């Protein structure tokens, strides 16, 4: 079946141009065009649409109102902005609901690539309800302590961007949101930013302040929502950060380029975000999944697959992909339990995250499971990296020692 994309712009010239530009995709895409938000909603109500690309400023209903409405009524639709506006206010208005922002004039290849990529991610999640759930997510729950600390830092006189960046990096959920924003095309960066400190200094205090105080951009985790005492957000975050740091060390020890090293750190930091989404949205299934994993001695991600139809890794990867994170980060998150599914054989962030996750997991579980039970040895052998495992294990030991 063809992918259905709806373009919304009040300028007929833009719609005509897009229609012609994307004509070469006519065999894969079925394109509709609407000249206003109202018209777009009418089309969405009648036909099933996979992705919407909308202008921001339009008479009557503007882009952010349209996106809000779509996120509410049709959360499964991929939501892109294509706007000639570059003011912060506009970005912040849509930061909760737009998956990605492209700015006019937008290179046609970039537009095609961004759309194809977001749509191809859907194969990660097969279940309709999960697609809707994940693309409906506008923010991820954060630790209240960290959120409050960020607010406090932002409010203090002489707030330093470095301090804010450091605080953000302690919270994977806020890290993901801030990087999504800073990498949006509105900020006109030619490169992808992968660490919160750079992101903070690029956004500046004013934008960060507005972001932190805007409803729906960051949210705080409510422990009461989940009945099982098994889940601790702080523990998940600690694990994420440990995997990020270890992944970074592993990459550095492989003498990877600095770009790759920081992607390893980022992918590690974000790799378990899917757990947050599942716990937050399906607390009962999450509890059931934990029971099943314990009872039948199966790994949690397989139990997730059984009960939800997708793993936390796939859920997070889909969200990060929608938010425009790089392929290597998305892949590292998606396959961190099953690296064999990847088609790459060389050292990638996936390698680093997979290994770091297994090493950290084994260390946490202590002697209960065999060391490195989670490791996919055949993947490592195929990559020719199996012999590096021992020295990577030592990196973890020394990291733990230095933390003590």
């Amino acid at each position, binding site marked *: 079946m063809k992918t259905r994309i709806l373009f919304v712009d009040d*300028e007929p*010239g*833009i719609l*005509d*141009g*897009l229609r*012609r*530009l994307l*004509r*070469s995709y006519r065999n894969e895409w079925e394109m509709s065009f609407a000249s206003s938000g*109202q018209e777009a909603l009418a089309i969405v109500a009648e036909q099933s649409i996979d992705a919407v690309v909308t202008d921001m*400023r*339009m*008479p*009557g*209903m503007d882009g952010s109102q349209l996106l809000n409405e779509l996120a509410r009524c049709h959360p499964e639709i991929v939501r892109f902005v294509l706007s*000639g*506006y*570059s*003011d912060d206010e506009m970005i912040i208005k849509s930061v909760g609901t737009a998956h990605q922002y492209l*700015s*006019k*004039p*937008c*290179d*046609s290849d970039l537009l095609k690539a961004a759309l194809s990529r977001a749509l191809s991610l859907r194969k990660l999640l097969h279940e309709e309800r999960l697609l809707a759930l994940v693309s409906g997510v506008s923010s991820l729950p954060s630790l209240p302590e960290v959120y409050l600390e960020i607010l406090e830092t932002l409010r203090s006189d002489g707030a330093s961007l470095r301090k804010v960046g450091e605080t953000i990096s302690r919270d994977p959920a806020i890290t993901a949101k801030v990087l999504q924003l800073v990498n949006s095309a509105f900020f006109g960066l030619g490169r992808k930013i992968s660490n919160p400190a750079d992101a903070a200094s690029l956004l500046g205090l004013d934008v960060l302040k507005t972001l932190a105080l805007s409803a729906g951009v960051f949210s705080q985790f409510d422990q009461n929502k989940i009945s099982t005492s098994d889940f601790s957000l702080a523990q998940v975050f600690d694990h994420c950060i440990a995997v990020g740091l270890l992944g970074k060390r592993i990459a550095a020890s492989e003498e990877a380029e600095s770009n790759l090293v920081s992607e390893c750190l980022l992918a590690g930091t974000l790799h378990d975000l899917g757990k947050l989404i599942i716990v937050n949205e399906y607390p009962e299934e999450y509890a059931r999944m934990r029971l099943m994993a314990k009872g039948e001695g199966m790994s949690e991600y397989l139990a997730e697959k059984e009960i939800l139809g997708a793993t936390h890794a796939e859920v997070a990867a889909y969200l990060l992909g929608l938010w425009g994170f790089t392929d290597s980060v998305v892949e590292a998150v998606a396959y961190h339990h099953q690296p064999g599914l990847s088609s790459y054989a060389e050292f990638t962030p996936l390698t680093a995250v997979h290994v770091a996750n297994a090493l950290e997991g084994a260390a946490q579980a202590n002697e209960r499971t065999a060391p490195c039970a989670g490791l996919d040895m055949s993947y490592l052998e195929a990559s020719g990296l199996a012999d590096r495992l021992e020295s990577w294990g030592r990196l973890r030991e020394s990291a733990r020692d230095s933390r003590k």
Partner: protein
Amino acid sequence: MDELELLENRLQRERLARKQAEALLEEKSETLYLLNQDLVKLAADLAEREEASRSILEATGDGIITLDESGRIDSFNRAAKGIFGYSQEQVVGQNIDKLFPMGITGEAFKNIPHMQDMERSGELHEATGRRADGSEFFMEISLSQGQLLQRRMIIVSVRDITQRKKAEEERKYMEIQLRQAQKLESIGQLAAGIAHEINTPIQFVGDNTRFLLDAFADIERLLSIYDQVLEAVRANEITEGLVTSVNSIANEIDLDYLRSEIPQAISQTLDGTDRVARIVRAMKEFSHPGDEAKSLIDINKAIQSTITVSRNEWKYDAELETDLDLTLPTVPCLASEFNQVILNIIVNAVHAIRDGKSDDSTAKGAILITTKQEGDWAKISIRDSGSGIPEAIRSKIFDPFFTTKGVGKGTGQGLAIAYSAIVDKHAGTIDVQSEVGVGTTFTIKLPMQG
């Protein structure tokens, strides 16, 4: 007896006369005493009064210098010493010219009335003074004359106004800064809007051109098969197969679609580049940097440019129509000031339309700009269908800093600047009629003869 009696009488008379003389003497000496007393008192009074005058003279903040008829300094009070930095001894007897770089009779005093002209004595004039250390300063000076023992005396009163001048200049500078800030604010706002206005056509010009590139690649395939057909026709070897492949390629590339779409893509592309060119031209016309003297301006064209550069400010909220009198002669005008006024009023109109609109309404408001000639005046009116200006604040709208917009939404300078530009700089008029809930009309009149 007679003699005795006579003697007696004489004695009597003499005694009486002496008594009278004594009484007279007493009376006279008393008068004298009283007179003397008065005199003493008068002298004391005079001394006191002189003392008072002197202390007033010394205590006054104004410098007071007295001159004789030839312009030589007779006296120099304390304030004068403070102002000029000379002591009394240094200047008394010297010519007054010493205190003025250009001399009292020189250039700076040209406007000061002749000293004989008592009518105008005491009038204030600005002049430049020179201190003992050679530095010069602004002062205010007034001259008057008096009579002293048959001699004419000239009284020069001076006041150092350096501080006041400085404050005045600072205020002027502040005003310029503020005006600049308002201009920058509106230019900043415009810039974002203009970027959008330009980005839109650039986007579709790019898309169309990319399409044309792809389309030409398709057509190229058809052209090469046509070449083959041509050769075959020449060689008289045309085959059914060749014709079929012409048809199949034409089908593959969807020739009918390309044929109808390509001309449209080209015309929209041209339209897009025209739009960019028009915006760029209007920007240039709008900004008119640094014209300090009036020149003859086509008011209609200036209005059109302003409408074009501000299009993004109004197009989402209002339909903007014009009814311009194309026979309107050119008007002596400071173009950038005039454009700024039109812009400020358009922006206010849009804000008023937004204010007057209920949240769920998607209907646009209306702005109508008309020009026409009325006698010796060019009349421009800008009407909006906005919320209107309440009676209570109507008289304040041209006051500097008066604003009904929230903090950060404007400096409150827009209409104040409009007023000063139209009234002060063009000797024109600006008026407002408004009805709450119905709309507002600003009417500007500019004299056709500068």
